[in-house]
């Protein structure tokens, strides 16, 4: 069998199934950040690890078509602005910068705790996309150097 980019068929088949579960677990950790251990940072790292898993198993050329890297750049840059926007909205509606201006809801509910959940999602997006872009840049550096030789 011809050796293709990435790892063997076994790894590819397992990755094809498991990467969705890993992504789902990352989203679960982010959304439940105000209820259980974890939060935006840990969930973002899990999402970045899922993308990294795909990149290791299928090779760099596959991930370039599978993911829109430019869109990841945009999400990464705009989530920093979103954090600031939540803070300024708090200044407008809650009286001070980063005030918790949304209603808190009932304790232990999934949708509760106001801006904490919003900020968790923003940080999760930022960390996930940012870490994967760093890995992608390292891989691209390798490709660039191969071109220059």
């Amino acid at each position, binding site marked *: 069998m011809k050796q293709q980019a990435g790892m063997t068929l076994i790894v590819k088949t397992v990755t094809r199934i498991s990467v969705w579960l890993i992504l789902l677990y990352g989203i679960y950790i982010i959304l439940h950040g105000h209820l259980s251990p974890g*939060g935006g940072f840990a969930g973002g790292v899990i999402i970045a*690890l899922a993308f990294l898993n795909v990149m290791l198993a299928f090779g760099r050329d596959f991930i370039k078509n599978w993911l829109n890297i430019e869109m990841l750049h945009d999400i*990464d840059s705009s989530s920093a602005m979103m954090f600031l926007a939540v803070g300024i909205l708090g200044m407008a509606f809650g009286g001070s910068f*980063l005030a*918790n201006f949304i209603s808190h809801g009932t304790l232990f509910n999934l949708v509760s705790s*106001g801006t904490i959940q919003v900020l968790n999602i923003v940080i999760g997006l930022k960390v996930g996309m940012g870490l994967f872009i760093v890995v992608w840049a390292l891989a691209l550096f390798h490709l660039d150097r191969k071109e220059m030789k």
Partner: protein
Amino acid sequence: MPVESWLIFLLSFMIVGSIIALEMKDLLSAIISIGVVGLGVSVAFLLLQAPDLAIVQFLFEIFSIVIMVRAFIKKDYHKEEPSKVNKILAGVTVITLIAIFFLSVPLFKLLPPFGEPLMTTARYYLENGARETGSANIVSAVILDYRAYDTLGETTVLFTAILGTLTIIRIKKRVKPTEDEKP
């Protein structure tokens, strides 16, 4: 065994792992020893009842190990030249460090016992955190509500770090040789 003995065991395990990582000639073995040290930190966080930190430490350990193994496994960095050490300077440094360590041992008697007294700010957070923020996880309540400025700073640091990495790494793409420079 009480938690302290487990912690002492883990800490000595981690110190031994770090020394092995420094002394290994093979780079891959050194990376694996660093990973063992990081997992020790994760277990120590679990024993100290900080699952949030343990999760983040565990994930970052995996992330960094994957990147390091991927970066170094095919390179010829495995052989390492023995560095020239100024023996007098090294001896003076080691003696000074040992002297500082032994002189600072009496200071430990001045410290309060481990985990006491509970900080009054922490007690305030524990008593009022769930009511004031509506968040059941007290760590989320602290880092995203009480200390949200700190998290904003961390986000900015992460953003700047990623920008810096991209700037440094992608610098080769821009200096492509033009047509007339090519032979």
